Each structure stands twice: as C-alpha cells, then as structure tokens.
C-alpha cells in the first residue's frame, strides 16, 4: 500500500481510479473560460481554495481537527483526479481566535487570492464576523460546526447541524427512554447555548409536557461549579441537559464526578462533548452520560471505517475524530459534487447547484443539501465509555434542517 492513494479509504480509492479516468476524458475538455467567468483563481491545472481556521489562540484546541479533516478530504480529491480536471491548492490563513482577524483574512482570501471556496470558521462569532464579507464579495463558505441556527445565507453551506436537528431528537429519546419529566438546563454564557436552551425549553414545555426546573449560564472559562452542582442535587431533575464548552467542560464534569453525580444516579444529556473534548475530560469522568449529535467516531459503517482509518494513517493513531471534524470533512466533497453538477467554479452557479446534492460516501452515512443550505442528517445518541469513545444507543431517521423553527423562537 505504498502508492499515492495510501491514505484513501479503499472504497474511495476504487472510485477514485474510475473517477480519474472519467475526469481525464470529460472534464479536461472544459475550457477555462467556461468554468470560471468571474475571475477566480482557477488555471487549466489548478483551482485555489482557502482554509480559514484558528491555528493559534484559545480556539486552536477545537479547530485543529477541522483543519486536518479538510486537508484529508482535499488530498483525497486531488488523488482521485481533482475537480473538473484541476488539482486543488490550499491557501491556509490563521484566524488566531480573533473575530476581526477572521473578517480580515476572509477578505484577503476572497479579494486578494480570489479563492473559489473557503472552508473555515468554527465559533458563531467568527462566522458572524465573516458573513458580511462573504455576502459582499460573493464568496462561498463551508461552515462545519453545529450551531444555533437563525441564519441562512446563499454564500454559506452549513455542514454541521442546526439547533433543532441536534436537540429535538435527543430530548424525545431521553423523555421516552428514561421517562424524563424534569430537566435542568446548563450552558456556557453565549449565543449557541442560550439559543439551544431556548429551543429545548419550548420543546420540553410544549411538546413533551415536561418541566424545566433550572436554567443556568456560566461565563466562558469558569472553573468552579460547586454551587451549581449543589443546586442540581437540590432540584433532583430527571435529566441534566448541558451545553458547556471549552475549558469549563473539563472542570464541570470532573467536579460532577467528584460530587457523586454519576450516571448511576443521574441522567445527563450533552450537546457539546465530542471525542475531542473527552480527551481533556477523561472518559472515566463522564462514563455513562449521553451526548446528542450526528456523528460519533465509533459509528459502524464502511464509509466511516475507511474515513477513520485514513485519518489515523495521516494524523497518527492516537488522533480522535469528533462531530465537527467529520462535518468539516464533508465540506470539500460537497463542494466537489456541486462544482461538477454546475460544470463551473462560479460561486453563483455552485451555490445554485448545491441544493439537492447527495453524498452517499459520507462517514456519517448519507447527507443531502437542503434548499436552505443546511444538511439533512440523522441524529444519534452516544453513551460515553471509559476509553473516551461513545457507544451509539440510538439513531433517528433523516431530519430536515429548520434554521428558523416556528414555535421555537
């Protein structure tokens, strides 16, 4: 296996061979003038894309996985013959965990480098900062993180889940499975947890007929949760529902465990702990708790096996893959499919061609781009294992993305 396709998943490699033949025969005839009418950085042999994440600063912890996944996908696409017969070249920019820097670099990529697409951003704040730039300069952004919704732009494809996709199925499951009636909502203090909890509260009160017995927000970076844990003990909710992020995550779960709040006594469902976070928290500190998202590394399907294998071969056997990392991996593939459908790199044509694009090779199984530029996807419930992985205990059907949910606003 010492060929250039060494990193390719086997199924992909097979397809790649076929595809490169196809590409050679069909796409190489497409003249530059036809595939690029808006002056993007496309030559006869190359197309340039941008990658915009935080390689430094506080968010580097989270964004590293996305950077790696996007690189892997682009490498695989290149090995399989590229897009429209052109190899993808990456210009990587560092947002440095600083929102104006994101806006500045986005503008550099779009105006200075004329990239055909950008894979990037992680936090809501960075996306909000670059959004006006993408709309004004007419760029195309693939955004990987699960997020709060309430947004839709023709210049953005959201490859992560919006809030209702991630939350509702999870709440339904735990209400049914554990007979949960009372919920305690806990989040870090910013827009994603607050919006998620708002949606959760409406669903619990109006649909499930349950009761929210507490709702708490702590500043980002807070490390003392003793009082909160005591309040949880006092209220004895059926379910603790959390969206705590960053360094706080580790402190929160370590202190929960130390205070005797374990899965033996308490149901807990989280939106914000992926395999990445579990590395820092330690599987033993969350053993038995549940997480609700669309992807877990342990998903048992051939696509995912190939993906995990390729990822580990490239980035080391100890690397872990979380929900966002997988969503980031989808970005370049979705873009490739849309470009080939449109027969052009022009942003308007690619954006117009995107709805309806299907990906059957996605590690999460099957995804399809909705008219609102979000993905149809399944939601899974994973149970934390001691070794830092999740055991998938539930899988929903395909859920329609609904970024502006009626009745939840």
């Amino acid at each position, binding site marked *: 296996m010492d060929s250039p396709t060494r990193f390719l998943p086997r199924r992909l490699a097979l397809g790649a061979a076929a595809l490169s033949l196809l590409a050679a025969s069909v796409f190489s005839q497409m003249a530059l003038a036809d595939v690029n009418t808006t002056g993007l950085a496309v030559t006869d042999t190359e197309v340039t894309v941008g990658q915009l994440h935080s*390689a*430094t600063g506080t968010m580097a912890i989270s964004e590293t996985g996305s950077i790696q996944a996007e690189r892997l996908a682009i490498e695989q696409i290149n090995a399989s013959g590229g897009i429209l017969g052109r190899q993808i070249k990456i210009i990587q*920019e*560092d947002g*440095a965990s*600083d*929102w*104006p*820097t994101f*806006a*500045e670099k986005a*503008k*550099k990529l779009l*105006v*200075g480098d004329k990239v055909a697409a950008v894979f990037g951003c992680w936090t*809501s*704040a960075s996306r*909000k*900062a670059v*959004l*006006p730039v993408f709309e*004004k300069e007419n760029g195309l952004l693939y955004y990987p993180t699960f997020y*709060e919704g*309430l947004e839709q732009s023709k210049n953005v494809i959201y490859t992560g889940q919006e809030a209702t996709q991630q939350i509702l199925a999870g709440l339904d499951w735990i209400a049914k499975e554990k007979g949960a009636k009372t919920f305690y909502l806990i989040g870090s*203090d*910013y*827009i994603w947890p*607050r*919006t998620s909890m*708002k949606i959760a509260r409406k669903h619990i009160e109006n649909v499930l007929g349950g009761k929210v017995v507490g709702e708490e*927000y702590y*500043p*980002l970076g807070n490390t003392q949760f003793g009082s909160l844990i005591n309040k949880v003990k006092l209220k004895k909710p059926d379910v603790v529902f959390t969206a705590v992020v960053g360094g706080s995550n580790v402190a929160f779960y370590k202190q929960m465990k130390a205070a005797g709040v374990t899965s033996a006594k308490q149901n807990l469902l989280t939106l914000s702990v992926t395999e990445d976070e579990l590395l820092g928290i330690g599987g033993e500190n969350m053993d038995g708790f549940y997480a609700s998202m669309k992807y877990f590394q342990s998903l048992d399907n051939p696509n995912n096996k190939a993906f995990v294998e390729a990822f580990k071969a490239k980035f080391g056997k100890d690397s872990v893959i979380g929900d966002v990392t997988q969503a980031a991996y989808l970005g370049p593939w979705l873009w490739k499919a849309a470009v080939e459908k449109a027969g052009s790199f022009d942003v308007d044509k690619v954006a117009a061609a995107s709805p309806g694009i299907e990906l059957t090779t996605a590690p999460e199984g099957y995804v399809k781009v909705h008219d609102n530029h979000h993905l149809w996807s399944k939601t899974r419930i994973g149970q934390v294992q001691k070794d830092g992985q999740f055991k998938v205990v539930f899988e929903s059907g395909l859920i329609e993305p609904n970024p*502006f949910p009626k009745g939840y*606003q």
Partner: protein
Amino acid sequence: MNPTLDKFLGGKQGAIGLAVLATLILVVFPLALDAFRLNMVGKYLTYAFVAVGLVLCWGYGGILSLGQGVFFGLGGYCMAMFLKLEASDPESTKIQSTPGIPDFMDWNQITELPMLWQPFHSFGFTLLAVIAVPVILALVIGVAMFKRRVGDVYFSIVTQAIALILTVLIIGQQGLTGGVNGITDLKTLMGWDIRDDSSKMILYFINAFLLFGCILIGRFILASKLGRLLMAMRDKEERVRFSGYDVASFKIFVFCVAAAFSAIGGAMFALQVGFMSPSFVGIVPSIEMVIFAAVGGRMSLLGAVYGALLVNYGKTYFSETFPELWLYLMGGLFIAVVMYFPNGLAGLWESHGRKWLGKLARKPAAPATPAPVAEAPVASSQPRELETTP
C-alpha cells in the same frame, strides 16, 4: 513661529517629525497600498489612538492602565449601536418576529427596543456619547482611585479587573449587547454605505486627521505646565504634592484624556471594520495596546503611532507566514523592548538612528537632515529615574 503654534507642533524637530508621519500616512500609504491593505492600516491606526493616550497617561503620567480596551470598547459600542439601529430598519428586518429592532434582539425574544438603545437613533447624541460615556467612567474610576492615592500597581490591577467585568457583562447581557458575537453587519452611516472601497478611503482619511488632532492635543498638553507637572509627579509625587499642587486632579485629567482618545479610536474602528465585539474590551487586547505604546516608545506620541503600525503589521505578516512562531516573536519582542529599550523605537532613534543619519549626512557633505521620528522633548534614556533607596 508664534508660541501657541509652537506648543502644538513641539518646536522645529517636532514639526518635522509630524510632517514625516503625515506624509507616510496621508500620501505614501494611500498611494502604495490597495484598498484592502489600506483599510487594514486604517484599523491599525485606530489602535494608535489608544497608544497615544497611553503615552500621555503612562509614559508621562506614570499611570499604567491595563484597561484601555474598556474605553476603546465603549466608544466602539456607542458608534456600533447607532449604526446597527440604522441597519435594522423595518424594511430590511421584515423576516424577524419584531421588525425594526436589531437581529440579535429578535433572537433573544426582545420585542421592543430597550431604553438604553433609544437615544442612539440620534447621530448627535451618539457622537456625544462616544466621548462622554468613556470619559465619565474614567472620571469615576480616576476620582475613586487617585483621590485615595491608589498607586501604580494597584491601579493597573484594578483597571484590569474592570476590563474583565465589562467583558463578562457584555457577554452575559446578550439581548442588549449581542453577547460574544458582538454587534455585526453594520452597513450605512446616515444613508452612506460604509462598506464601499471609496467610502473606506474617506473613512481612512477622517481617521488619520482625527489621529493627528489627538497627537496635537497631546503635544499641547505636554508642552504646557501640566506636562511638566506630570513628569515631576511621575518622578517625585510627594514633592509635587508638598509644593501645593493637587496631584490627584492632574492624574484624573490625563486619564480622562487618554480615555477620550481611546474612545475615538474605538468609534473609528466600528466604522471602518463594520462590527464591534467584546473581544476588544477584555484583558488581552488591553495589554496588547500597552505593547504598541511600549514598542513605539512610551515617551513619544509619534513613536506610539509607529509602534501600533509595526506591531500590527508584524502580527498580520507573521501569522500569515509563520503562525507557530508568532507568539514567540511577540513575547520575545515584548521582553526585549521592556528590558533593553525601555524607550522603544523612539528611544532607539534618539540614541542610534540620529547619530547614524548624521554620519551618513556628513560623508557626502550634504546638509544634516533632522530627525523624522523622535519627539523633541525626549532626553532621558531611562523612562523613570527611580531612586535606589526606598
């Protein structure tokens, strides 16, 4: 030259230094850089306002504020609130459940514009608030701290804590402030699209002229009796007090001036960058602003501008080219400047550059070119001549 003008310009050398900087900012940059890079320089120059303020209150007054981001942020938020209200007219927000209010309020189930936001419909009020809000806060802090003779280090730490409080507050009250995302997507100023290249160019020049205004005011203050008193206070506060001067009032005044400068910078930032977020208020940006002043030279108003330009350019350049190295470089630069060049670039110029230029000028027997960078009154090599005995 008449004496008042002289005070503003800082003598012949000061005038030449100013002219060189003005040529650089008003002629060289606009000609040499494309619209995108020029806008970036414009952004850097908004930090220069803060650095100029820090030269006054830290370099000359000895008051190290680690919370200048607070004033920068308040100025920026006041401006951003006005712009956001203009961007949220009922027409363009008609998909919201309550049209006519900023989008983030709608997401937070706020159904009418909060009282705090009401006055920001008026541009006149906004301009007033940009200066007044930060200055009033600075006044309160200043009166409370300086009247009670809270000294150096304590003051620094308290201002740092205030920066933290304001950040937590802004993030926590997201229905009112936009939370951690800040106030984004600002479009027009009284109907004038601020996102065009041409309007960015105009904003750049407005920004530059305001900056020079601040520098001139700073010079005037330093050339006046107040400037000499500030330096005297910094070196021997007790003696100035015993001479019958009200030390606290001078400190409060210069702290308020620095706050006002920072606020103008913040407002121009919101205009040029198109958004405002709590990440400019907190502890890290506040200390970075001190770095600008330290690198440029804490005793030089013009040096501070060069410092802000250079450090930010370095940050952009290195984070594009060697992202891994950036923090090492920044940290190393900072340590080196503080330890070995306490007067920063301006000090280096004074001690080496001028001599070198003189030599260079003598060789071809050309008339000696005077110094472009440094300030006239900089003479001491040490920023503070502290006594060795306690």
